[in-house]
């Protein structure tokens, strides 16, 4: 069965630190990849997505993610975090050719930024 792993369930950083959240998936075919974020008290919302083309994808609020096919990874990065980045981050994967209504979700990473 397909799965998505987010290795860090909780991450605590200080402001201005660099961030990298890991996401690995288990599917050998073509994939669509997503990062969603849920800020405290807000709805889950799309941060960025990758379908094809440049494997380095830029999203909102200075976030980016790199798709490395050989490593089955889609890690989320931000060079300098802010207190307002405190949120829970979810990686999700769709296997093209599979049920296209189905996203496989990671368990999420709770990020806390200390001011």
């Amino acid at each position: 069965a397909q799965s998505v792993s987010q290795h860090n369930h909780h991450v605590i950083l200080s402001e201005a630190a660099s961030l990298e959240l890991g996401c690995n998936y288990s599917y050998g075919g073509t994939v669509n990849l997503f990062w969603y974020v849920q800020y405290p008290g807000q709805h889950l919302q799309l941060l960025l997505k990758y379908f094809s083309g440049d494997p380095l994808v830029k999203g909102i609020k200075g976030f980016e993610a790199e798709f490395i096919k050989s490593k089955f990874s889609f890690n989320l990065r931000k060079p300098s975090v802010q207190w307002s980045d405190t949120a829970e981050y979810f990686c999700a994967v769709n296997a093209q050719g599979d049920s296209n209504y189905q996203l496989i979700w990671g368990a999420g990473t709770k990020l806390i930024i200390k001011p």
Partner: protein
Amino acid sequence: SQTIHQWPATLVQPVGSPLSLECTVEGTSNPNLYWYRQAAGRGLQLLFYSVGIGQISSEVPQNLSASRPQDRQFILSSKKLLLSDSGFYLCAWSAGLAGANEQFFGPGTRLTVL
């Protein structure tokens, strides 16, 4: 702009009681609609999706059912709740297939079954 509503926000129900959670979308037509359940420390699990009125697909066999009586209304129901039905339920919509389109999520309903 589009908005998505869910109610109630929280619900405490006894085992064996019925359930009805409602989700409505505004500002769009013919959306694809989804019900998810999120357990603590786990990702979202797709329960049901609908591509149109009266069209419901179930991803996971369970004690729950879904209905779509109107284009922008999606209801999650149960005839008899189980303890294991406790969780956080999210409704979402997308303009196209979830695997290839952004999904927009509602605020969720926290269900506790006692």
